[in-house]
């Protein structure tokens, strides 16, 4: 099966950015993955909407090893643990673009995990390239460019579905990032560089286009990639389920400090 026919085998739905509090986005990722896994929702592309800054750590990361909690508190930055593995991110709403894909696992059947990362983000690379950004995929899960790293992806296979999300740096307050995140030398040991800030190459350093134009181009590219994309939304029932998951999981100290 060709790559394109894998995508076009589904009727994809789009959820446009809905500005919500930090935990809502993480809970929605689980709710929508469950719905797609249960066959209750079409495969979906969701762009995140944000209203507040956060530090997002990976499912398997330790809070104290990754975050300077005093600095985060000082700036009113919440610490969130997501459902997927991967690394910590410092996020300010206007400075990032995050999307999530929720799909049946058959979309990536027969692929290794490493292959599936590049496959699931290929349309995003195409969108960036169409805007004149010299972007490519760097396995396992990085989107990079001649100007530096643009973003990273993370994936989990759960609830009978695949959740794949990625965050792209549109802009970056690197001083603030370095205050809040702890980035050790070992992590950079195979990157040939010594500074995490130098490693990032936000989109805005490479094009003057506004953030919304980038998002629109990504939506157009995805629609073409899949041979169609229907407008959709988060249902009231899904939002209610997300609220429950914030109370029982994503908003709890037990979850966030699973690995202290």
């Amino acid at each position, binding site marked *: 099966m060709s790559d394109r026919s894998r995508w076009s085998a589904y009727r994809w739905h789009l959820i446009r950015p809905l500005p919500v509090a930090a935990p809502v986005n993480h809970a929605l990722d689980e709710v929508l993955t469950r719905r797609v896994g249960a066959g209750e929702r079409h495969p979906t592309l969701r762009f995140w909407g944000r209203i507040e800054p956060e530090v997002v750590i990976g499912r*398997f990361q330790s809070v104290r090893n990754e975050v300077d909690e005093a600095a985060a508190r000082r700036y009113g930055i919440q610490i969130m643990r997501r459902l*997927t*593995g*991967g*690394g*910590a991110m410092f996020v300010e709403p206007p400075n990032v673009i995050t999307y999530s894909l929720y799909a049946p696992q058959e979309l990536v059947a027969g692929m290794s995990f490493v292959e599936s990362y590049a496959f699931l983000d290929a349309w995003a690379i195409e969108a960036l390239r169409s805007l004149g950004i010299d972007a490519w995929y760097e396995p396992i899960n990085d989107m990079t460019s001649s100007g530096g790293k643009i973003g990273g992806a993370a994936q989990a296979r*759960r609830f009978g579905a695949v959740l794949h999300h990625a965050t792209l740096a549109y802009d970056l307050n690197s001083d603030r990032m370095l205050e809040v995140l702890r980035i050790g030398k*070992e992590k950079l040991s*195979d990157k040939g560089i010594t500074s995490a800030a130098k490693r990032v190459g936000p989109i805005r350093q490479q094009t003057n286009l506004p953030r919304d134009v980038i998002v629109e181009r990504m939506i157009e590219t995805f629609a073409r990639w899949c041979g169609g994309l229907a407008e959709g939304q988060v249902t009231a029932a899904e939002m209610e389920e997300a609220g429950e998951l914030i109370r029982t999981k994503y908003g709890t100290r037990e979850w966030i400090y699973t690995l202290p």
Partner: protein
Amino acid sequence: MHGEYKTPGGKLVVVDCEVRDGRVVGAQVSGDFFLEPAEALTAITAAIEGMPADLDEAAIAARVRAALAPDVVMVGFSPEAVARAVRRALA
């Protein structure tokens, strides 16, 4: 005690632990790796908890490997990477 190891081209594994009476206690394995299913982290950590602190890297890797169910997928790291982070923590 704290040890880190990054697999070249892969992900970081971090081990935090203490040693009591010659054995590893209070072990925590973390990192920016990917692991399916997520619950397998409990088995990896349990393989280290209580182990003799003088085990060499190969023996630690063998313990971790033996603790994993056949369906576990480690992406960007390996039992050997965990073992190296443990040895670095204990060094």
